[in-house]
């Protein structure tokens, strides 16, 4: 599957990036193509583009705060929202929730 994800945490110093790392690593192990946008202290990085959205099968929102630009993903049918901690501790569970 082609999966997009956004990670964001209250301070944006550590957990945003830990969650991104886990989703990329475990997603790859599970055979998915994963692109993760981080919304942290350095602002938005690895931004998800219109082209990314157009080809995506699912979206993971791993955030403990409101994310920016949520309306970009109106066209994606399959969305799961999880706390950042779940993405860090049990990333495989997050993908399981996608039915993927």
């Amino acid at each position, binding site marked *: 599957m082609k999966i997009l994800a956004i990670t964001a*945490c*209250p*301070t944006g*110093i*550590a*957990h*945003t*990036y*830990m969650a*991104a*790392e*886990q989703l990329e*690593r475990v997603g790859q192990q599970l055979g998915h193509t994963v692109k993760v946008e*981080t919304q*942290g*202290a*350095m602002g938005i990085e690895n931004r998800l583009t219109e082209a990314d959205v157009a080809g995506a099968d699912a979206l993971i929102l791993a955030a*403990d705060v409101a994310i920016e630009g949520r309306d970009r993903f109106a066209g994606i049918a399959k969305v799961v929202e999880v*706390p*950042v*901690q779940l993405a*860090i*501790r049990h990333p495989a569970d997050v993908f399981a929730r996608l039915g993927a």
Partner: protein
Amino acid sequence: MPHLDLAFPLAGGLHARPAAALRERALAHRAELSWTNHRTGRTASLRNVLDLLATETRLEDPCRLSATGPDAEAACRDLGAFLAGPFRATDAVEPSASACAGPGVPRLLARLGCPWWPAVPVASGLGEGPVRVLADSDESPDRGVASGDREAEVRRLRTALERLGATLEAEAARAAHPAQRAILHVHGAMLADEGWTAAMVRAIREAGLSAGAAIARATDATATALAGAGEALLRARALDLRGLGHRLRTLLDGPPEPAAGLEAPGVLVADLLTPTAFLALDPSRLRALVLGEGSATSHTAILARSFGIPCVALPPARLAAVRPGQPLLVDGHRGLVVPDPPPELSACLRVEQQGRETRAAAWAALARRPAATADGTPVKILANVAGAEEAARAFELGADGIGLFRTELRFLGREAPPTEDEQMEAYAAVLRAAGDRPVVLRLLDAGGDKPLPFLPLPPEANPFLGRRGVRWYAGHADLIRTQVRAALRAAPAGNLRLMVPLVTDPGELRWVQALIQACATGLGRSDPLPGLGMMVEIPATALCLEPFADAAFFSVGTNDLLQYLFAEDRGDPTLGGPARAWHPATLRLLGAVAHTARALGREVSLCGEAAADPRLLPLFLGLGFTAFSAAPQAIPALKAAVAGLDLASCRALAEAALRTGTSAEVSALLDHPAPRADLPLAAPDLVVLDEACATKEEAIRRLVERLACTGRAPDPDALEAAVWAREDAHPTGIGFGVAVPHGRAAGARGLALLRLQDGLDWGTGDGEAVRLVILLAGGDDEAHLRTFAALARRLMDPAFRAGLMTAPSAEALIRLLPDDLTR
């Protein structure tokens, strides 16, 4: 009648130490001197310390000093000079490292649910032990009448007074702490108070009381009057008096009984503890001291501080509820008393206290070493002094030399100028105190604004723009020649340099140089002459410094420079005030002086009130100043501030400040100090390996302290608060036995790591035990946020985590971290 009107200059009011100093100075004169406070309407003789205290004189009170008798004029002027100079140092507060009391402890108290009492913090430190109380030593005073004849009783009293006076003097001479010495001197002055002792004698002669009963009655009456006073400081003096009265009574009949002491180590709880009773205790048994509220401003409190005994004050109802033997924990810094303290709480408080002590020790060590910025630029922190005693104190506090020796104080308030020999002695004394460190002696800075009776100058409409500083030298050459001769004769005693005040034209400097040469020839001196420098206090001189290349050094006097630059009397509080010191106009002018001085190859220092402000130090360093001269008590803070700065950041700050247009904009820049750029984010001294830690609160404070004690968190409490705010949003345990608490605070940057012996519950709700805690402190710097992000990603690698969990040493652990964290 000769008199002097003044607004009282000390922030702490006329309390016991300044009053004792005033009395001592007054005793040197035959004139009768009196003090009137127009606000309270009270008058006192300068001979009576207690009466002086009873005038309840506060800062800025309108006061009059009057003199009658033989040398009234001279006495009045001498006291005037004293009040304008050395008197101000009698109010000096001992410097201390920055305060610290983070939010972890209150959280822990709430979480553990243990009772605690808020208290008035009196003396910093942490003490724990069972409650001890002193046996009641205040025996019911002998109310009896004199058994024998009344004059014999008076003689008994006088003998006891003399013995106590001599004992106090001897005790002061061998006192271990300056505060103890000062207080014993105050006690000596109280004992010499005529009002109090006269009341004792009257009670014997007129009422027929025994000496003991007379002491008790006079003490009661005087102490009660003091206790009813409006000022807390004055009320506290009643305690001194009662202690002295008690001691006096024990001296009436031969050798005194040993005072009540502590039978075993513990926390002494006493509503009233006289300074005398405190000094009789064995400090090694005194873990902490809990006093009644009335004692917070007492001399007992000052003694507790100087002996390093943690001390707080509690309200009476609380004191009465304390049981002897009950375990008590006292935090004199926070103002906290905890009965039956749980060990987890003690552990957390100890971490805080040790951090404070480490930082205070680092401060003291810095003061003893030559100052240098973090990147190794040497900086001189010099002292402004008026005499040898002040110079000695300045060197105790870490001065690298005397940047401004004000000589005019010796000239003020006299009929005739001091003789050449007298001056020579005074200058040599300062030079001897300095050893081989430089002493910059400023030639007589008097004139229109500081008139001298032997310096007749015509009245001026505007003395501050008139014949001040060097401007009258040529017209009264004898006066200045005597001073120069005295200085040249004193020169062999040390490392002397001379300085000319208020120079406007190069000719003024050359005139003084020629005078020095002529004096040296007259004295038959062939050794090299002391270097001659000049004050830069006039904007025109500051802007056009090149013609002054003859000067051996420059010293910028900010007080006058600001006054002339802004056309504002600095004594007028309704005008610009201290903010003028960081106005961009000031900074541009100072930058020009530093630039030209460097081009001329001359040393340049900054003196004046602005030079003593650690907050402004990075600005001035950034402008190019590397020498500062300030009041002795400002020196430790300046030295500590220098060590925490790096020149590159200072230059960037100064450049930013020079581009602004108002003091407020510069102030905003100063409020956001840049983090230290010279320290790596992580280093072995930030790693705590395999230690026990009872609570999450303690773990966080430990890591915050590691950062603070290594110069990476200027405000540890702010960082701790930021970390807890993040924990409250979501606990930062990430699984795998790892927690990554983090927060941002101004000037804080770094990574501290704690590996625990036993797992700790991090409050993530899953009961997983955390064994590795990594605290990230970030400012606003993008580069290191990126570094932290990279580290966070690596923590997801099981092999990396395993390496951190098993690294055999702090050094080995640091080597596992990404390079850009440790560079």
